[in-house]
């Protein structure tokens, strides 16, 4: 349906715009992701859509295509024990180290929001800690952000990683979908962020979570994104990556994909 040349053009586009690694040989994946975008925008065929992207390069459509290629699969409480460790150990340590100051947390590439909401649900059981914490979440994809903000999940999604006790405590079921309760949703602030662009205006964070994105990036994209994520760490801040994803060597490994930025190391690396 899409020619090899067009698939290579798509791969280049994703690499340039978002640092994404797209294999041009994976015709099925590319068609699967882009066909709904083409349909939504009223194109007769996928080929017509890609042709229009190449000829006219309308920014809105170009981004819709890149975002569709970037969408990733996320689940609640993805890494067993991580959320518990953050709430039980890491956040109390941060709170003790900076009395009175807010603890700023950023879930980067948040997808449909399951990770940041897992943290919000866990935090809701520690009101004093929750009151000190500010949760931010970002994604490249506007559609992912819309879904995340709505907090509506399918039966399949709420069965992957979410304990049944939390499902009955924090969700309602007005129809087919499960709806996360407003108090949990309101704990999180959302923003569209492209991690390969300049993010200095976002400020610094005590904890940055970015799990599972790194392997989906090109070599150059990885360097850019890891640079941005670590630059956003406050002195003494923590970074959470997925299994087997390594940050720059000056960060101290703490197990379960967690790393810390010692105050001195941050300064010398800057």
């Amino acid at each position: 349906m899409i020619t090899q040349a067009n698939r290579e053009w798509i791969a280049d586009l994703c690499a340039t715009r978002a640092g994404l690694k797209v294999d041009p040989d994976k015709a099925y994946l590319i068609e699967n992701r882009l066909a709904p975008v083409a349909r939504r925008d009223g194109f007769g065929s996928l080929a017509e859509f890609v042709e229009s992207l190449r000829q006219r390069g309308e920014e809105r459509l170009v981004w819709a295509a890149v975002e569709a290629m970037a969408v990733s699969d996320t689940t609640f409480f993805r890494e067993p024990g991580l959320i518990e460790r953050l709430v039980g150990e890491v956040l109390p340590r941060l709170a003790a180290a900076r009395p009175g100051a807010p603890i700023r947390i950023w879930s980067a590439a948040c997808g449909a929001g399951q990770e940041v909401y897992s943290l919000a649900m866990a935090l809701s059981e520690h009101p004093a800690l929750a009151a000190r914490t500010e949760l931010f979440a970002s994604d490249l994809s506007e559609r992912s952000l819309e879904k995340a903000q709505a907090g509506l999940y399918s039966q399949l999604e709420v069965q992957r990683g979410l304990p049944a006790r939390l499902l009955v405590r924090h969700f309602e079921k007005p129809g087919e979908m499960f709806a996360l309760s407003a108090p949990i949703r309101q704990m999180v602030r959302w923003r569209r962020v492209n991690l390969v662009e300049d993010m200095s205006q976002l400020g610094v964070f005590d904890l940055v979570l970015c799990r599972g994105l790194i392997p989906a990036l090109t070599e150059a994209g990885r360097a850019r994104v890891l640079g941005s994520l670590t630059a956003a760490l406050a002195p003494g801040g923590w970074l959470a990556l997925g299994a087997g994803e390594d940050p720059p060597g000056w960060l101290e490994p703490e197990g379960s994909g967690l790393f810390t930025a010692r105050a001195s190391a941050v300064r010398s690396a800057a």
Partner: protein
Amino acid sequence: MSAAVKTCLVVDDSRVIRKIMRRILEDLGFEVAEAGDGLEALAWCRAAMPDVLLLDWRMPVMDGLDFVRRLRLEAGGGGGPKVILCSVENDLANIREALDAGADEYVMKPFDGDIVAAKLGLVGLAA
């Protein structure tokens, strides 16, 4: 690796479901036994208590909820095996009722191997 092989009792009046569950659980390294209703399951548990039960709700003779209440009563004081209720009921009120009756986790049908594996992980029985 843990020393002993974990055992799971699959309780469902549908032979097809039991067969699907058995395949999933054996792939995860569990030793599997089967029962067709709650009463049969109770007899099983009295003879050889499994580590975990995957338990249907709607069954003849004794349904899943009656079974789990009896099981918790017999085991006493919150003891006994882990129980994962599996049912087509997908209203939150149903799930709440199952948890209140003594189930540890809940799987809404239809399920797949990933969901079962994840739920086993949640009750501390990751393969």
